[in-house]
């Protein structure tokens, strides 16, 4: 599904990713852990197409397509979704409006008819109930004045509506209380399937008790330095990154 090869990325002439490799097959859940500033969010943003990050070397293919040539919106329509570490507040743009526009943009991209208001409302209500999101949150401006946990839940909510093929969750567990963590994990788990993949970036092994990964990667200084199974997360929790 996703293949990243020898990826070098810089911002303002500073190299952040220094030859990163990762391959994600359909249906897999990969977890990336690593110290602050090692480049995890950079990778996530590069996958989503953020222009401030310049790819200087390497390749990213997603379902056989060269991702680097695609605009962020094309990547999204192709099925990439990024749950932001810091979801952006957009005053004056209603959450529901963003979602409906997003969903319909994607449908248009695939030559499908736009969803009717009522159909969308029904879908949104269903997902909201599952995630324990207040209906009020839909009407409010995107992320504006949301609590930390509400923002993260809202990201997962968007993911559920847009049904991406590859979701990159950047510290979606940070700032969640234990109940919210379970709800969010359930939200992810309910979407798992043979055609859908996840990259879960986290600092805490705790999340991985709920979203059990197939692979765990350790990222240090812009590179994956070690990969392993879910037991690697436990090891990291105990020993930290000192050994890398």
């Amino acid at each position, binding site marked *: 599904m996703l293949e990243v090869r020898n990826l070098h990325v810089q911002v303002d002439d500073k190299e952040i990713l220094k030859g990163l490799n990762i391959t994600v097959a359909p249906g897999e859940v990969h977890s990336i852990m690593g110290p602050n500033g090692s480049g995890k969010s950079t990778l996530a943003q590069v996958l*989503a*197409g*953020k*222009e401030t990050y310049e790819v200087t070397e390497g390749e990213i293919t997603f379902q056989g397509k060269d991702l680097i040539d695609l*605009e*962020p*919106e094309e*990547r*999204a*329509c192709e099925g990439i*979704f*990024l749950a*932001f570490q810091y*979801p*952006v*507040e*957009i*005053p*004056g*743009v209603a959450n529901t*409006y*963003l*979602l409906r*526009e*997003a*969903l319909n*943009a*994607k449908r248009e*991209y695939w030559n499908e008819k736009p969803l009717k208001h009522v159909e969308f409302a029904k879908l949104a209500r269903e997902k909201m109930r599952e995630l324990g999101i207040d209906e009020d949150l839909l009407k409010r*401006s*995107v992320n504006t004045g949301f609590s930390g946990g509400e923002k993260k839940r809202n990201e997962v909510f*968007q993911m559920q509506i*847009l049904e991406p093929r590859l979701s990159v969750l950047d510290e979606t567990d940070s700032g969640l209380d234990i109940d919210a963590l379970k709800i969010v994990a359930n939200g992810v788990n309910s979407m798992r399937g043979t055609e859908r993949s996840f990259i879960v970036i986290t600092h805490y092994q705790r999340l991985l008790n709920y979203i059990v990964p197939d692979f765990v990667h350790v990222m240090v200084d812009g590179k994956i330095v070690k990969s392993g199974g879910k037991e690697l997360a436990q090891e990291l929790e105990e020993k930290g990154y000192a050994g890398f």
Partner: protein
Amino acid sequence: MAIVFDGTRESYVEGLSEFLGSGRNTLPEWVTDLRREAISGFGNTGFPMLSDEEWRFTNLDVLRRTSFSIVGNGISDVSEKTVDSYGFSGLSCVRLVFVNGRFASPPSDELRDEEGVIATSLSKAACEYSDLVRNHLARYADYEKDPFISLNTSYFEDGVFIYVPDGVVFEKPVHVLYISTDEGQPMFVNPRNLIVVGQSSGAKVVEHYVSTSQNVYFSNVVTEVVCGENANLEHYRLEFESQKAFNFSTLRVNQRKNSNIASHSVLCGGALVRNNIHPVLAGEGCNSDIYGLFMSEGRQHMDNFMRVEHASPHCDSRQFYNGVLDGRSKGVFHGRIMVHEGAEKTDAKQTNRNLLLSDMAQIDTKPQLEIYNDDVKCTHGATIGQMDEEALFYLCSRGIPMRKAKIIMLRAFTNETLENMSISSIRDALEDSVMQWFERRLENGSGR
């Protein structure tokens, strides 16, 4: 025959006798006296200079260099269809039409209803309701100090007169349409409006300035509003003049006890625009909400000059102005709040937010607080920025195309002011014009 002004101070002062003798002055004798008195204001100052504190961001040299004339004879060349095209769909309103500063009687719905509400032309009202007009006309707008008010008071031919007697809430908006046409030479027009809303009364007035051609003219508007005790007025000023026009306007509001006004300005047209909003909260417990949206492109210059005068205790005022600037355009927001000595418990707030769509666009924003009382709450804030890149990326990362994302962001910004309009058909129409404006900007490669 045209009365020509060559740009000099003398030409504007001396032109008055020609104007008075031209048969264009159809108003009663007392107005003639007023005009003679008023012109000395301009005679003393001429057009303001940059050295004048209130004009430091707006250079009027071009006015001093350009000849204008009082010409034209009204409705003749504007078809009913053209007039209708400026209407708001779905809005049931009373419509009054002025062409090049003169009243256009046929397409207008003059009103004198059984409750005593009057909506007609000021020139007619000055004859028919002489006392009413005389009690208020030129009592508020200061023609001695303000050169543009001086010129308007001296040269106005017509404008709207709206009167709502005590205890009447007139729900239907009054749509006043001011159409400028091409008269073959740069015109000088001086619409003069008087709106009197009685005690515990209500009205909604929409001043709407449009042009059928993109030519040069000088439109100099003065509106005086008297908002009676416990009255409510919602006032709109929609400025869609020619892109080459000079547009100066003053909204001077006198608020009595417990009255509320909401002023909505949307400025889009004009090469050089000065928008003066000057409410005086004269009685206790007044409320003034002042909203504005200005959008400029090319080399347009839009100067917004607010002067909110708190003259009594327990009054609240809110100024909320947003600017969208593209091309090499310039904007000014000058927000003065004056709190007089007796005006304790004043609560005055001012916000000016600006969105720059180009590197060349420029905005000068200046709050100015003049407070002669300790017991007040005054806040002001201004922001200048570009479209939020992070927000655009966020929207695109959800699959929304960049162009659409920009439109969404602009709409959110402009709606901060537009959403306060209570007349939904006007709000919707303006939202559409804003979007059309922005689409044109995007087509020209702007709107980054």
